[in-house]
């Protein structure tokens, strides 16, 4: 347990180190934030002064070292435009992103897993075929197109849901459902395939032979064993959802951290971009850690000490 956490922590540190270094080098060798920051009409002297004041004239390794040193002290630098601590800016926006990502994840898991179980139980009937067809459709639909389609139908034509905004449950419905669709499809297919394998295995036959109710066998025995691959994918999807939420947040004018990132990328606001990448890398490793621990709870055979 302690060893597992330690491994994951080391992994997080390595990822963050390499990622920040790569982003830093790329930002400084390829893209120049000064021209954008100073504006179109500024003189060469102004730009030189700005460059000097930001410390951009030092060699890259000096700059990176400086960033790393303050990052180790919890300081990830100030946003170039908003003149505020980058981490504070992100932290302010994170609750909205978390709300979107977690409600999407919850909806996808509940609907996707139930769909998968139903399809597996009625394997090779029209119910199964229907579920598989739905999941192929769901996997093929780009989330941002589904979002626009939903806005057109429910906000523009039927006028029953708001197209943009934040705050009430009604505002949450469209972003969550449109972002969920792809995950529901993925989870359903995964659970179905995994359940079909479980339902044909020996322990299920034994349980049935002992006279346990079919419903109990499906939900307690087979489903539990089918969840291992599903949990891996859920953990991976968590961080991916954060990335795709960037598009959803943009479409629905959702005040999350994704929109902050988009603005930062457009203006090459590098402290903010790198801080955001660090946050996502941390979340990804955290999700993997939770997933490792869940394995142990679901399947005692892979419990690690």
């Amino acid at each position: 347990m302690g060893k597992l956490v330690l491994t994951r922590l080391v992994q997080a540190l390595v990822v963050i180190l390499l990622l920040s270094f790569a982003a830093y080098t790329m930002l400084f060798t390829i893209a120049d934030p000064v021209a954008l920051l100073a504006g179109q009409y500024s003189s060469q002297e102004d730009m030189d002064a700005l460059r000097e004041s930001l410390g951009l004239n030092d060699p890259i390794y000096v700059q990176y070292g400086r960033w790393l040193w303050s990052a180790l002290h919890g300081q990830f630098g100030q946003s170039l435009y908003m003149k505020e601590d980058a981490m504070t800016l992100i932290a302010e926006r994170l609750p909205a992103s978390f709300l979107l990502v977690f409600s999407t994840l919850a909806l996808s898991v509940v609907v996707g897993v139930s769909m998968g179980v139903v399809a597996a139980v009625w394997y090779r009937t029209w119910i199964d075929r229907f579920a598989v067809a739905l999941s192929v459709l769901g996997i093929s639909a780009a989330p941002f197109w589904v979002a626009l389609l939903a806005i057109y139908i429910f906000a523009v034509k039927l006028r029953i849901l708001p197209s943009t905004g934040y705050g009430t449950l009604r505002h949450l419905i469209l972003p969550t459902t449109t972002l969920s669709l792809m995950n529901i499809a993925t989870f359903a297919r995964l659970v179905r395939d995994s359940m079909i394998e479980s339902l044909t295995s020996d322990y299920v036959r034994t349980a049935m032979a002992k006279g346990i109710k079919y419903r109990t066998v499906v939900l307690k025995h087979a489903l539990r064993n089918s969840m291992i691959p599903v949990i891996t994918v859920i953990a991976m999807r968590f961080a991916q959802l954060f990335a795709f939420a960037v598009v959803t947040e943009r479409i629905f004018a959702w005040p999350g951290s994704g929109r902050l990132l988009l603005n930062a990328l457009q203006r090459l606001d590098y402290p903010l971009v790198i801080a955001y990448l660090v946050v996502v890398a941390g979340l990804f490793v955290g999700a993997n850690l939770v997933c490792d621990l869940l394995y142990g709870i679901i399947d005692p055979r892979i419990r690690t000490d």
Partner: protein
Amino acid sequence: MGRLSSVWKTIKRDRYLTISLLLLLITWALVFVYPAPHDPNRQRLPDRLLSPLESSEYPLGTDQLGRDVLSNLLLGTRASLRIAGIVVVLSFVIGCFLGIIAGYSGGAIEALLMRLVDLQLSMPTFLVALAGAAILGKGVWKLIGILVFTGWVRYARVARGATLSTKELVYVEAARSVGAGNLRIMLRHIFPNVAGPVLVMAFIHTPMVIMTEASLSFLGFGLPANVASIGKMINAGYPYLLRGDWWISLLPGAVLFWIAMAINLFTSAIRDRLDPKLRSAQRR
């Protein structure tokens, strides 16, 4: 006669595969063979915002500047598919090459390569692509480079796994004992076993690449201004969608959906043929 009936038998036995193959062919023909009726960049303000079927000259309507939606759609889809094709082929070659070498040689090379793969997989692909596209700036080859950079790792992982399970097989040992070199063994004996699962990966990867490219272009970080692009069309049509002019945004997205669906149907039909592990699981 005999040949024809055997073709018919195959079609009857594997309806799913045949239908999806037909879908793919029709899509390909519509996109690449059907000529664009207008210059996609020609603007004509009197004809702006015509809805589909409103004018016989513009079957799918016009956008806010009077450009023909159908022509833009065709050229944009071609660009999308070409980019996706190049990305998938490059990722396939690089990933396969490195994956087989890693699996075959083992030791330090394998450890190094697999750490690299783990590292890349520990960040969401879309975010890396987004940050890369923003930093590098717009450009077709830059975009291709970014998508290959984020894509090859999946192939490498699959190729390494398949190599590990074949390299201990008896016929590989037999080939080695009669004096076949490493290169020959990798090409002639290991690659054919690796190709199936990696090909499945390529089919899964293709719609993902198309969607990622469209999403990046939609956000304004993908293709440059002079290339027709589905993502950019969707983005440009968004304000008009809110007014009720749906076709500029929704039609390009529908084309993306259609193509992804055709590929996904084909993938799930061909999957159990190319991946023996899946075949045995599904037959049970």
